[in-house]
């Protein structure tokens, strides 16, 4: 079985929302067979590191195996959020695609055609 390293965007989709200075980003694999692989590879530590440059202090992952989805809750990642951020996107809606740029290693046959 050959494996390939791809950005999450190739195998999953995501949406970001905000509450204050906290962001939540869902991560949903297109193929249910990828759920355990993502559970193993997309860890809280990796996601926290991905947002460290924005001041993130904590990342909690909630697993929803029946929905085959994950919910990442990231604290202090929005530079103050809509209250204080100088970022064009104070809500952090675009951050879902930063998560989707993280790479994972998956079996080639699980890639969408």
């Amino acid at each position, binding site marked *: 079985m050959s494996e390939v390293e791809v950005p999450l965007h190739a195998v999953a*989709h995501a949406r970001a929302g905000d509450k204050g200075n*906290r962001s939540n980003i869902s991560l949903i694999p297109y193929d249910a067979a990828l759920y355990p692989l993502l559970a193993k590879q997309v860890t809280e530590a990796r996601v926290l590191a991905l947002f460290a440059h924005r001041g993130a202090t904590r990342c909690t992952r909630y697993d*929803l195996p029946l929905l085959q989805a994950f919910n990442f809750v990231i604290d*202090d990642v929005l530079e103050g959020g809509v209250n*204080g951020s100088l970022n064009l996107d104070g809500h952090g809606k675009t951050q879902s*695609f930063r998560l989707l740029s993280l790479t994972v290693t998956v079996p080639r046959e699980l890639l969408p055609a």
Partner: protein
Amino acid sequence: MTFLVGNGGGFSGDRVDAPIPVVRSLVARGLPAAMFFETLGERTVALAQLERRRDPELGYEPMLERLLEPILADCFRARIPILGNFGAANPPAAARLVARLALRLGLPELKIAVIGGDDVMGSIALDQLPVHEADGSIDIKSARLVAANAYIGAEPLVEALRLGADVVVAGRTSDPALAIAPLVHHFGWSFDDWEKLAVGAACGHLLECGSQVTGGVFWDPGFKDIPDPANIGFPIAEVTAEGGLVITKPEDTGGIVDLRTIKEQLLYELHDPSHYITPDVVLDISRCHVEQVGKDRVAIHGLGGRPRPDTLKVTASFEGSWLGEGEVSVAGPNALARARATADVLLRRLEMRQLGVRARVDLIGIASVLVSDVGALWRGYEGPEPPEVRIRLAAEGADRDMVDQAAREVLAMLCCGTAGTGGARWRLTPRILTRSYLVLRERVPTTVSVRSAREMA
């Protein structure tokens, strides 16, 4: 018997023609139904309060007439009540607007409810309340209060429907309450039937952002394509007395309802999925699963509900600092070097003039929204030469004039900047700070008054 809940708007600024196909579909299906609009974001009510200070007849959703005019008569004739938090900071004035519109459309008997009590600015001392969630770090010393509103639940909305209201004009309500209320009213669900209220809360949560569950902020060309994105159909929920819930959309519209759109919206702005707090019920989606039951039809199963909290969330808004922004463009050969040089010179200018503002620069097209104030991602960029770059300066401070001066430094680059600098824009905006508190629900009494358009106008 199935009850239909349609959504006609997910935020202030949504597509104003969205409600038309939803109402057309509800009327054609002939089932009992309600429409709701969610147009009140966290700080929208503060901006509305500022409008109201300027003019006592303003301070409600500015697109209200445009949203309701094409659907009001059809909804009235089909007995489809319309609920909305479009009253914002001034529900009585919004209700008068609806009354005038109804008279103009020949509907003098249309009944309009005004919900009061969410505005707690004069009635509750905020400094004695516990601060909600992660808001403790926000500095509000000496900040001036603009608005304070409690997120009220479905009970007063149900009372308005019981009194025969055709249009229910509210200010701050919880978003799901706008869907829970017509369901409780129609099915006679009890306010301690947590499993049923959970279905209502999930229905409201899935619909409250309008097209976000039918393909909006979902489509990703080549990866997640949707039909006709210029014409996305807004959502309709089919709910049964037993708590069955199916999400769909009008047939003659674009967009899509599938497992992917439902999952994205189910988790939208959720933290712990087993503990989504609303004023009417605590919703648990941790054991929930979804099923495609037809084209653009998804059923949601396994929703859980637990007793509502004793407290309501109050969000207070304060006058914040000033935000100044300026942008210029560069294009063509050597654009990246000119953009980087422009960024460095702008920051140097703020330093030289000692304007005392907090500032950042973005290189739009290289790194802006994903970067922090330090700009590490565009400073370290080593990718291909971009065809164009737009340079943005943002500055914040308490002194309006200093912030304005900072933004105008971008304008000055039209003559002092690198070769081929153009397209300057700059603006100055006041910021609103919000902070949330918890208050015992009995301290937030609500009021309901219902009158006909004829009596009101």
